């Protein structure tokens, strides 16, 4: 007896695939140049203190993780890469809005119950995988969160870049050193998200990797809501 495999279905528009992989590359450059910039003053707080509590106080990150060679080089990389990162981010958001695809992605209050069921499944408190559309509620929470995080990265970045001209923004974030602090923490949330994301792709749905590359999906989950 032969089983015919499920047909391929279109899952990701080219804008989604382009902005996804472009963001991987550009964000890596932003983080690497950011770590080189961090080297110049590896703590948070006005000179003479008090300083913010940080596990990376005084840490120099390994040479391979830094981009730019020295502070000026890193600044130029960072401020140059900020343009494509913002452009890809806006292109992606524009696509989500125009295509209506935001509906399959945005975590809304009605997703809370489903998120709890998903959490139960992962914690082995329920046996069968809850039914889902293109994304399950926990995925929606993660993807909505990472988009918000991108916005916060940009806002905290501007607050550090122009603390006098954009004083209102810097003040809103708690001041210049606080904005630096949040800007730095956002990096580790991004890194944590990426590690989790990659692990889940391979552990739960490896077919989704091909879908993000070619646009076509043949896996265990539905491709539309």
């Amino acid at each position, binding site marked *: 007896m032969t089983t015919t495999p499920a047909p391929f279905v279109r899952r990701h528009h080219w804008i989604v695939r382009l902005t996804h992989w472009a963001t991987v590359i550009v964000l*890596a450059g932003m983080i*690497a140049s950011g770590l*080189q*910039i*961090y080297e*110049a*003053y590896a703590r948070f707080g*006005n*000179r*003479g*203190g008090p300083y913010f509590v940080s596990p990376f106080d005084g840490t120099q990150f390994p*040479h*391979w*993780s*830094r*981009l*730019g*060679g*020295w*502070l*000026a*080089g890193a*600044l*130029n*990389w960072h*401020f*140059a890469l900020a*343009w494509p990162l913002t452009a890809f981010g806006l292109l992606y958001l524009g696509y989500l809005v125009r295509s209506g695809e935001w509906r399959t992605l945005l975590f809304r209050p009605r997703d809370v119950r489903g998120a709890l069921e998903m959490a139960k499944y992962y914690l082995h408190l329920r046996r069968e995988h809850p039914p889902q559309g293109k994304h399950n509620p926990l995925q929606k929470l993660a993807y909505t969160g990472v988009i918000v995080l991108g916005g916060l990265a940009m806002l905290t970045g501007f607050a550090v*870049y*122009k*603390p*006098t*001209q*954009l*004083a209102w923004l810097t*003040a809103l974030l708690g001041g*210049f*050193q606080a904005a*630096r602090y949040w800007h730095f923490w956002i990096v580790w949330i991004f890194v944590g998200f990426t590690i989790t994301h990659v692990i889940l792709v391979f552990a739960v749905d490896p077919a989704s990797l091909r879908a993000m590359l070619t646009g076509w999906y043949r896996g265990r989950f539905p491709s539309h809501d």
Partner: protein
Amino acid sequence: MTERPTLRRYDAPLHGLDRRTFLRLGVTAGVGTLAAACGWDGGHLLRPGLLDISRVNDWVGEKILFSPTRLARTYSAAERSAMLPSYFISTTVPMLEDAGAWRLRVEGLVAQPLELSLDDLMRLPRVSYTVKHHCVEGWSAIASWHGVPVSAIVERCRPLKAARYISFASFDADYWNGWDMASAMHPQTILAYGMNDNRLPAAHGAPLRLYSPTKLGYKLTKYLVSMTFTDTRPGGYWEDQGYPWFGGI
């Protein structure tokens, strides 16, 4: 039926790369390039492009984000930081041999060139404020400064229409900075002869330094000897090495 390697499959690696090997090589080359790029300021290929983009960012900072009237937040004297690091590029603190003979030369594209002593400067309008100092390295510190606004000097030397920039020179080796006129005319841009209610200390640029809370520290020339009005954009000590020219915050 067991599959045997066909001649074609067997020969393929000898004649060219199969798809998988090609991909593997591509990924290796990509990773290698990235690895080489780390700790890398762009090299001969990318550095000029990065500097061009930096000039675009200067333009955005100067023409869009900078406001000639918006004042930086001021603080109370009680909020001063415990310390404010000083720096100079000479090997020892730059000092004048004859402080009494020191004059600030105001020259270039001006109707009235000037030579001002410290006493002359102290007789001019005085501005004092307590503001936050932002270093390009990421540190900040609050301190008080007093001195004469650059706009008061401009009023007296009357720059020609063609003058669009000011080049500030120092006696700290070859340290210097170029400024746009709008930043120089900002009400909080001063030639400071005092810090934290005292005379400007030698470590911070005595007898006279440029100060403004709208610029990063490296734009604030210390140990001033002259300000020259020009029609072409001057560089600067760090700016010529790749730091952003505008340096506005």
